[in-house]
């Protein structure tokens, strides 16, 4: 079954055409990683998928519902997609527990006990259950990002979107977040992940998309796209990312 279907998606900011006809699909239970140079439109693609940006044209279908349809209930559609941001974006004025319960209560209308039970389950899953009473500013980056993942999971999303979830982390904290994502993938969560972690993409992804200049240049299984790229642009990009000397770029 297809969880997310993206058809000929176009998005411009003024004169700048950022997405120039993207078509891709994510099957249910599949992990798709999007790689590509900075500025190639990866974030914009993800933001279009949960309608933080309005595409200019094209279609996005999530589990049979066309969310780009004019009559579609945007808030309802977003609820079905969990989003994890590069900068975590935890609600700074709320405790970890309240970060996880507020949308459950206000949007899903769950009662307090139910919302807290779901929150605790997810916090336990990502390994920060001992931090329920803390405020985001008191947590490390890795802990914050794991809380952000738990917050998205608490809404019971059908698909999880990750936009460079480890790019803002100190190197020693990257592993704990990737570990949680790996576990989610093992449990069968459908995931669309923008990442620069090639090792993760190789091991966890079912499919890899290489984007450059607003188009999907190449896609396929990781061993093919990362292991044996066909296109010159993909090769150049991978050479730069995988070359240890330029790693920090």
């Amino acid at each position, binding site marked *: 079954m297809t969880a997310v279907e993206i058809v000929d998606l176009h998005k411009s900011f003024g004169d700048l055409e950022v997405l120039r006809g993207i078509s891709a699909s994510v099957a249910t239970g599949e992990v798709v990683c999007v790689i590509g140079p900075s500025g190639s439109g990866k974030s914009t693609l993800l933001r279009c998928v*949960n309608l*933080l940006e309005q595409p200019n044209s094209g279609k996005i279908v999530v589990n049979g519902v066309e969310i780009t349809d004019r009559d579609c209930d945007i*808030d*309802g559609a*977003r*609820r079905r*997609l*969990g*989003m994890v*941001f590069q*900068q975590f*974006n*935890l*609600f*700074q*004025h709320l405790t970890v527990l309240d970060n996880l319960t*507020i*949308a459950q209560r*206000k*949007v*899903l209308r769950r009662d307090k006990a139910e919302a807290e039970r779901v929150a605790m389950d997810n916090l336990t899953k990502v390994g920060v259950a001992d931090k329920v009473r803390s405020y985001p500013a008191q947590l490390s980056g890795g802990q914050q990002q794991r809380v*952000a993942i738990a*917050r*998205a999971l608490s*809404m019971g999303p059908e698909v999880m979107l990750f936009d460079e979830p480890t790019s803002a982390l100190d190197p020693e904290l990257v592993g704990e977040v990737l570990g949680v994502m790996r576990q989610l993938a093992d449990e069968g969560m459908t995931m669309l992940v923008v990442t620069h972690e090639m090792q993760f993409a190789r091991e966890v992804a079912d499919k890899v998309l290489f984007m450059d200049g607003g188009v999907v240049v190449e896609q396929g299984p990781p061993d093919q796209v990362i292991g044996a790229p066909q296109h010159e642009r993909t090769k150049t990009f991978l050479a730069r990312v995988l070359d240890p000397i330029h790693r920090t770029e």
Partner: protein
Amino acid sequence: MSPRKRQQFVRGGQYVVFAAVVLLVVFAADWSSLRQNFANLDVAGQAFPELITIALKNTVIYTLSAYVVGFVLGLLVALMRLSSIAVYRAVALAYIEVFRGLPALVVFLIFGFGLPVAFPGLTFPFDQYGTVAVALGLVAAAYMAETFRAGIQAVPRGQMEAARSLGMSHTRAMVSIIIPQALRIVIPPLTNELILLFKDSSLVFVLGVTSLTTELSKFGGDLATEHANSTPLVLAGATYLVITLPLGYVVRRLEAKQRKAR
């Protein structure tokens, strides 16, 4: 003379000038007349307890009621100012510009003399208190609106996006996520606004006040005229300072705390 020496010399000179001015004032002033006129215990006795039970009480009521009106209206205007609907933005902007451009005194005069002529029979609830709350509140709202706007815009964009990505509507995200964080940011400037209002409440006199609706400035002024003695003014002034100085201190502490938290 070495530059260092010269600097010491100049500094020393500045102290000498300061001391000279102080001495001059001290010796030239007529202290007994001053005490008689500004610190007259007999006259001071006359000011109590009304200075506290009526004047201060009314000043506080005028200030707080205007503050509540200004707070609610200011938040509303700020949200209109940030609205995606152009008409709301235009109205909010016009409101802010007009009421920040007018002296509060003029607004009071309009309320005291203009409105009753324009709308005969117009009355505000709670008489004088209602009129003051609205007139002073309208002025305060314009300033508070700009403060709220700045506070809302200071909340990082990602907060709204995270809220929306969880399925919250724009309004829900504003109420539950953005405004609570904005309020924390604007506590110091809003406390400053309270201090300003506390002083501006003295403008109530242009509406004409009775012995029961009088406030600190008017009370002090009237009593001073009655006794041909300035002591009541000193008392009124001291009462303002008793409130404003601690509040000012609190504002500075809060600001310092926020700077550190950055």
